[in-house]
């Protein structure tokens, strides 16, 4: 007899295949008629996602509709995936603004460092997951697109309030 054969703990006289079968069938029948089903009817019905969910980005805007970004360059520096492309510009008053601000969402690893590092609370990772596109180019979000996003943004983890209370 080979080692590792599973040995039944009960003596053989106490095992009954038919009784076990019938009780199993009763169990499956109860499950069948039970109206409670666990299926989520996506897309009509969506599960709530965590407030700390980190999805595709969103650029917040000021009241006059401009991006809050001051092109300080912190987010491309901190980005571990190197997916943010930023070309800073400066207007007549000396205010810095991004000439080009692009995020390649395919390269992004959704770590949320950009949101954490941003001094102006301009760039955010969003609570959003339906991102399908027909082409790879579609996943490079430019400034206009980032500003046009409307989904809620991530509430970053706060060390002072680790449980988010």
């Amino acid at each position: 007899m080979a080692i590792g054969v599973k040995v039944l703990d009960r003596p053989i006289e106490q095992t009954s295949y038919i009784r076990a079968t019938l009780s199993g069938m009763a169990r499956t029948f109860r499950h069948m008629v039970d109206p409670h089903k666990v299926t989520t009817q996506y897309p009509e019905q969506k599960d709530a996602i965590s407030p700390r969910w980190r999805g595709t980005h969103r650029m917040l805007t000021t009241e006059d509709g401009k991006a809050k970004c001051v092109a300080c360059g912190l987010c491309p520096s901190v980005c571990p995936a190197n997916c943010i492309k930023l070309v800073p510009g400066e207007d007549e008053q000396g205010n810095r603004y991004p000439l080009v601000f692009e995020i390649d969402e395919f390269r992004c690893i959704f770590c949320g460092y950009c949101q954490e590092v941003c001094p102006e609370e301009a760039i955010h990772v969003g609570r959003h997951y339906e991102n399908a596109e027909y082409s790879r180019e579609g996943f490079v979000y430019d400034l206009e697109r980032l500003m046009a996003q409307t989904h809620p943004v991530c509430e970053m983890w706060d060390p002072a309030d680790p449980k988010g209370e």
Partner: protein
Amino acid sequence: MSAMHPVLAQIALAPPGLHLADSFREPSFGVWLLATILKMVVFFTIYLVTVAMLTLAERKVSAWMQGRLGPNRVGPGGLLQPAADGLKNIMKEETAPPFGAGALFTLGPAMAFIPALMTWAVIPFAAPWDSSWGRIELALAPLPVGFLYILAIASLGIYGIVIAGWASNNKYSLLGGLRSSAQMVSYEISMGMSTIPVLLLAGNVALNDIVQQQAAIGWNVLNLTIAFFVFLVAAFAETNRLPFDLPEAESELITGYHTEYSSMKFSMFFIAEYANMLTASALLSTLFFGGWDIPFTLWDNLAPHTGLKTLLTFLVFFAKTLFFVFTFMWVRWTLPRFRYDQLMALGWRFMLPVALGYIVIVASAVLALDYFDVPLRGPFGLSPFGLALLALNVVLCIVLFVWLDRGRIISPASARVSGAELARLRAAAVQRHARQTALTTEAGD
């Protein structure tokens, strides 16, 4: 009918007004031909639509049993899912294995499906209809040797799978084909043997007579309970449904004999599985659940055979068949697959002796009941003959399922290990467990 079995003879004479061998008018050849063609067209349509819907039903039932909802996107409640599946399968690329046997490769799926369809030729699916053009039998070809025909055709079903397994030129497919041939040959014997008591009781092999006999003395599931159980288990084995799906065995054989099939050929195996299931269910209801007989009344069995009776009996037959189809699905989503040795042991060491012994018991019982002139029809529509057989079956069921079912029907792997060896293995297992626990605790520290 001079050599009529005593049971049938008694039915023919039995009051009150139970004229089962009633007189009727034969239809003319033209009417017969037209009726047969119509029957075939209507039957074929209903059958194939039902088979298609069963593929949906299986997914729905499995989903419900697992707390899900099942397919519900195509059409209302997912009703058009089979159409979508069919369309998808037709559009898919068809691949054939190199070095495979080409013609046989195509023949396999067809051979799997055709016997299931052919069996239906003799199954009576409703009471005969005495139209103004003469009597129209509601079976496609009401053969007087109906049951023998079924046994002959049922044994053809294995060829499709074996041919498919062979022609695929694939190890797993071949193993699946071999397993299925071993399994079907083993269980066909018990299946045939379990039906002998039915024939003993009916005294005839024409299926319509078997139905009428059950109407008179009660359904065979009560008269011949053990035979019913043996037939049920054998039917599961013959249709390769869980817990007997060893020929497919996804986890061992990568779906076995249809590994190499794709597109519509794969679909054909799928259809064949459900067609076989439907056929087995129809046989179960015909042989043991009274066929088209409406329970608790003889109204449907007696003349005049109106169209209404035909329609109602058809619905009853359909309901019974669907109930068994549901049972097939129910069992599939409950039980795990047998081991190969369990399968063989169950077939040869349990089912066959039980079926053989049961023939002897039923034959003696019928002989004894005939000797003491136990009447077929008694007061309150009860049949003393049937009740006597029922009492016998209750005793036998208790013996079989309470006393005999103690690790003997399906045995665990340790069943053939001696007591001393078993004790040693158990001790070793305990030691090994203790050693592992000690190791993990150490690693944790």
